[in-house]
């Protein structure tokens, strides 16, 4: 290559000017293209949320039965409001599914029931006892009456499936090793797992659906009266979603536990919930049975059902 072929400083400056001109041209085209697009569909306006008591109770429930879980005019905010004036009553054996857009405070409601959070205003009652004023140690005792299934299962990585399910029994009961072994097998069978096949496995060796089932077995180990589920079907394939949904229905049917499910999955919510509460703008804007929800003429609810 001769020296004449080497690009000079002038050549490079010229090439830079050309590149800049092309870039400006492209940017102008993009702006034009954006202007010519039709405007985005305006959102269907929401109904003005009003504070209401959502009562998950059958008409056949006797009048003297009191709710297992009650949130009374609960408000909570961190840097911005998370829940505002939320009232919720869940009666024995009912399954309430709390649905709503992301960031509307659904998971926060679960944390309030578990007393992992304390509301700024209002009361949280578990079996008639106000848990807001409990000390940390007293709250630990209340939590032992509840089973919690986490979105990502939250199994302890360093423990086998057996140790995970046996954990609450070892911590809070005086059961012998044989009794614990029998209980762990019973719970694993309940969630349709073969105990001998899975007990020695580590969580990392399980599929997503199996993790979820082991998580449910761990939640059930202590025979709790209350089960809480945070997005139990998120991230699962449709078949596994169906399996987990049936499992939650089976618990309601056979064990009669009172359940609170937080979910995005409206189809599963319709199947497993005896009641559905819709949270929007930090308040409950709808509360009723799945049938009542489907029949609702409220535009926000219709939009919500159609969008999910």
């Amino acid at each position, binding site marked *: 290559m001769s020296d004449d072929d080497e690009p000079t400083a002038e050549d490079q400056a010229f090439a830079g000017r050309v590149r800049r001109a092309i870039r400006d041209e492209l940017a102008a085209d993009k702006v034009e293209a954006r202007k010519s697009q039709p405007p985005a569909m305006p959102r269907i306006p929401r109904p003005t949320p009003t504070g209401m008591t959502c009562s998950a109770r059958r008409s056949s429930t006797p009048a003297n039965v009191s709710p297992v879980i009650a949130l009374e005019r609960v408000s909570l905010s961190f840097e911005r409001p998370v829940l505002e004036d939320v009232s919720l009553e869940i009666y024995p054996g009912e399954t309430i599914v709390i649905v709503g857009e992301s960031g509307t405070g659904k998971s926060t409601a679960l944390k309030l029931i578990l007393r992992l959070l304390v509301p700024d205003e209002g009361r949280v009652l578990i079996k008639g006892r106000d848990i807001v004023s409990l000390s940390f140690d007293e709250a630990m005792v209340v*939590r032992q009456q509840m089973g919690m299934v*986490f979105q990502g299962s939250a199994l302890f*990585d360093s423990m086998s499936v057996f140790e995970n399910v046996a*954990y*609450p029994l070892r*911590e809070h009961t005086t059961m012998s090793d044989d009794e614990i072994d029998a209980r762990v097998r019973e719970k694993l069978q309940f969630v349709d797992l073969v105990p001998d096949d899975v007990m020695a496995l580590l969580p990392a060796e399980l599929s997503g659906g199996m993790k979820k089932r082991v998580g449910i077995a761990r939640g059930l180990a202590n025979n709790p009266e209350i089960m809480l589920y945070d997005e139990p079907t998120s991230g699962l394939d449709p078949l596994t979603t169906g399996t987990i949904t049936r499992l939650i229905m089976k618990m309601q049917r056979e064990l009669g536990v009172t359940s609170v499910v937080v979910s995005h999955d409206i189809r599963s919510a319709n199947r497993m919930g005896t009641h559905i509460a819709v949270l929007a703008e930090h308040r409950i804007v709808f509360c009723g049975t799945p049938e009542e929800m489907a029949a609702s003429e409220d535009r926000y609810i219709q939009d919500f059902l159609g969008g999910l």
Partner: protein
Amino acid sequence: MATPLFEQLNTQAKLAVYAIQERALLSWNAVRFIFVRPFYPADVIQQMDSIGVDSLFIVVLTGFFTGMVLALQSSASLASFGETAMIGRLVTASMIRELGPVLAGLMVAGRVGSGIAAEIGSMRVTEQIDALNTLGTDPIKKLVTPRLIAALVMLPVLTVINDAVGIIGGNVISTLYVGVPSSIYWRTVWDQIASDGFTGRFIPNDFIQGLAKPFVFGGIIAITACYHGLNTTGGTEGVGQSTTRTVVVASISILVVDYFMTQLLLGVLNPR
């Protein structure tokens, strides 16, 4: 515009005070739970294995080479005074009082502190800490207390090994390279240990200084790592940040605390 700057400084100062308060609370609870049932002896032993036994190799390696380099460096300086026989004293004083505890502390902060922060941080972002809470277990009791006990016990043990291996390393160089006979080297080692006096007639003051420091450093490493692990936010990226912060904060804390402890212990043990 002084106001926004003042507000920013004010916020930063409040955050710093808050962080210190949170660490102090965590330390207090972790210590309190040592005496409260249920105990987790299996977890403590597992952590002693992880913090102590698994760190043995790097600590031995660090100690040996530090002892050798100390002997090498001091031989050149001492030769100019014709006092190469004093290598043993110099290596022993340096290892037992300063380099043994500080280097063991820094190595463990890097190896174990980062591991603890990553493990607890991962548990935080995968909701395992919340799971512990909902299963009625205090995460501080289950996770922090066993690690604190293990670090408080194992760091002094590692330091003793570090000191011993360092002095042996010094012996190797002084004998093979400088030409000081082993018998003289070991006599000067003892001279140094005895020179600073004894507490309760039998415990050399150098040992008290050399063992008080790693005990405190063990606490700093365990609490710093657990604090950053428990306060991890932001998914896997947050775990990485917690790990880095732990190593930086623990290492700096060790060096700063070492200075103040030295000044305090010299005042208490060797009042002039």
